[in-house]
């Protein structure tokens, strides 16, 4: 492949792309902050939380045998309420409440505000958002990123062969398979597989929450270098994760095969492939040298962007499996109105995606000198 040294022009292009992507990241985060705040729903939820705490406090005060005299109680309750309002930032308008989070967001120096959010990860408050993500991320990687990698490994080598055998039964079944997996949402396949493999056949767990304990057991085992324990817990993790991984892979594979096929078909019908065949090269050489090499670019794009996108987790599928990864964290954070966690998740997932895109842009510029501003 022709490789151009990075001259000033290329550097300028890369710098420009970097700037645009940073701009995009900033706008995305600010926009999310606005939506979190402007829809007013975090305010509604925060008020409910405060009311609940104030009610509990009042009950505490008015219990029989309470040392606080009754005339003092109302004042104390009022003061307690004011403190809570300040703590949750409800005394400020929403844009200050949301936007004041933004600078601390960059270093993930924010705290989870809702007990349920920590609870879904098997943790307790106080909890830094960064730590919450650090706990949730490996679980999502086990389930979704792994499924991505498996699908990519299966489909990239077979794509060109499907393209080659266009019109064959195999090709047709790949298309039908792709259409089916494209049509049925992955979370429904998840529901169905829990229903069949979990409840009817009893081959898989019906509750996936124990994965939390298993993963911490594994890290303990790795820490103490206990080989038998590592193997045993690994087996348990496999028991809890094989169905989710299979389901997501099943669903992803269709799209992957179809895209790999489509990309390869474009190449297969190019003149230079016909020329290579006319030269008498063997089909496998043609696939290796002329097709795989050319489709490497678009496939690389798919892989990198797919992997980057996968770390955000599958919100619905993880919720259906009750799988405590990024997706479920997202969902619980949103439904409990934990705006710091929501913002942090949007920030982290977008950041990863944008960094991946930036890497791709740099690769494009390096590999293809024709790319222009």
């Amino acid at each position, binding site marked *: 492949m022709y490789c151009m040294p990075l001259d000033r022009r290329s550097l300028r292009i890369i710098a420009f792309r970097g700037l*645009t*992507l940073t*701009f*995009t*990241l900033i*706008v*995305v985060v600010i*926009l*999310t902050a606005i*939506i*979190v705040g402007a*829809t*007013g*729903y975090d305010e*509604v*939820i925060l008020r409910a939380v405060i009311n609940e705490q104030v009610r509990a406090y009042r009950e505490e005060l008015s219990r029989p045998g309470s040392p606080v005299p009754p005339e003092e109680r109302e004042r104390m309750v009022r003061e307690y309420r004011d403190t809570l309002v300040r703590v949750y930032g409800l005394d400020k308008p929403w844009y200050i409440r949301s936007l004041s989070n933004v600078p601390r967001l960059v270093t993930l120096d924010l705290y989870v505000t809702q007990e349920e959010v920590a609870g879904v990860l098997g943790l307790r408050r106080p909890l830094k958002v960064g730590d919450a993500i650090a706990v949730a991320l490996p679980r999502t990687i086990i389930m979704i990123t792994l499924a991505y990698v498996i699908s990519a490994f299966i489909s990239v080598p077979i794509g060109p062969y499907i393209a080659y055998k*266009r*019109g064959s039964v195999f090709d047709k079944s790949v*298309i*039908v398979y*792709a*259409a*089916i997996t*494209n*049509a*049925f*949402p992955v*979370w*429904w396949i998840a*529901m*169905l597989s*829990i*229903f069949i493999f*979990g*409840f009817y056949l009893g081959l898989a767990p*019906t509750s996936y929450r124990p994965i939390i304990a298993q993963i911490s057991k594994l890290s303990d085992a790795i820490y103490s270098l206990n080989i038998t324990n590592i193997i045993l817990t690994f087996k348990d993790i496999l028991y809890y994760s094989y169905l989710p991984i299979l389901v997501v892979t099943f669903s992803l594979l269709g799209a992957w095969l179809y895209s790999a096929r*489509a990309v390869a*078909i*474009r190449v297969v*019908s190019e003149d230079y492939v016909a020329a290579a065949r006319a030269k008498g090269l063997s089909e496998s050489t043609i696939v290796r040298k002329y097709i795989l090499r050319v489709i490497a670019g678009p496939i690389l794009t798919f892989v990198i962007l797919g992997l980057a996108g996968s770390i*955000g987790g599958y*919100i*619905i599928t993880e*919720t*259906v499996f009750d799988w405590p990864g990024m997706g479920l964290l*997202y*969902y619980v954070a*949103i*439904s409990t*109105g934990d705006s710091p966690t*929501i913002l942090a*998740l*949007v920030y982290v*997932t*977008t950041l990863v*995606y*944008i960094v991946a895109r930036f890497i791709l842009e740099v690769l494009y510029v390096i590999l293809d000198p024709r790319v222009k501003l």
Partner: protein
Amino acid sequence: MSKMPVKESFISYIARSIKEGLREVLTYNMGRVGLAILVFMVVMSIYSIIVLPGDFPAMWRYVTEPPWIYNPRSALPSWVEYLGFDVSETRTYTAIRPQESRVIINPDDLFRYAPEVERALGARRVALIGYLEVYRVEYNLDSRSYPQDIIVLFNVKASENVNLTNIRVIALLYVTRPDDVILKIGELSVSLNMLNYMKATHEYFSLPYISYYNLNLTLEEMKTYFNIAIFGKPITSREFESLRGTYQITLVLLYIGIDPREISRLIADRSLSVSVDIKVLGTSYGLLGTDIYGRDLFMGLLFGFPVALTIGFLVSLAIVAIGLTLGVISGYFGGRIDEIIQRAIDIIANIPLLPILILVGVAIQTQGWTGWPALSIIMIILVAFSWGGVAIISRSMALSIKSEPYIEAAKALGASTTRIIFRHIIPQIIPYAMAALVFGVPSAIIAEAGLSVLGIDHGLPTWGRLLADAQANRGVAYNMWWWVLPPGLLLGLFSFAFVALGFTLETIVEPRLRRR
């Protein structure tokens, strides 16, 4: 001149393109399958609009109201009987005619014409005179599963000069079992204007039943398992087995309060009519069974058809329209406006759509919005963040078409920018836009379903809503395949139709993908 060529309008151009496109789509297997499913969806939508009442969403929502309370709960589809499932059928005897109807002056006549009254387990003789109607229906039980209930529905109609409050009615409900034991399972004594419905209860037969069979059961247990007592035979002091055979259900209506001959006259000249429906609730019901509230899942699914098509097409159409317009503007005019649109696409492409949708969905819920307004907001968000893809394609196509010589030619002829865009550029993009449109249709309904499964309730019984109900009751619902499977299958079938059509269109407009 033999034939006068008529200038072709833009509309007829589009119509002709669609016709030609359809013809081409039909040459592909995938296209045929997709189109067939689409036609099925349209037919079902029309049927749904005709059959379902206008206030169906509200009706669906109130699970403790008629008609759902008159349905068996968690009932399987009735056709599963043919697959070897052991289910008892649900039978409705609508507007049945009385077997006996006469004025009785002598109390003994009651026992003559309605012998069940006297022969029921633990019956007491009472002296009653009035106007008598006796209804009898037969129900055949051939299953190990017990029917859930027996319900009688009354529909009283009277002309204005009849004072219903003066007429009282005593309703007595009996069941004559295959083993010839007669159980009294209901009694009602109300004035005619209050006559609404009655259902089987344990009260009138529990005590004699326990002593007759010498059972070791409490009244509380009898209350809970009254249907087992009615349709089953004790095999030990606590265990039952269903009693197969023909059951006769007898409803005795005795009109009192005014002169029985007067009632007879009112009924004869149709100034008063009491229509009676008897329902035996089995463990199977209808085409697709019921959920745990007794809601007819077929009706729920039926409602989903027009909603899915409407949401899908509206959202997709809006996405394509906006994407196409902005893409063409961006590509054709270039410059600063292009830059702005490109950045906007960049931003919306990076915004995580589902979290935003969930956020907005939760916000809608906290604001207490339901129904179509709530759904519309979700649809608007969906459109606002999804037009980027179409815009990118349209832009690159507009860019390449813009440099075609025939655009230059049109400019040389003095064509305005509007004319060039609408006459020369957009028609070229239409096939691609059609493919994008078709691909986009399922995304809206799948997004809606996903949101529903996450618990965001917009209050309309869509397929996603049904799945969400099943997911919310996952402990029970995962044993009820007829609740989990059909909504998902329909959702999948619906999207499959469009994916298949989309693949076909893609093959047509991108000839390199076509088979040689």
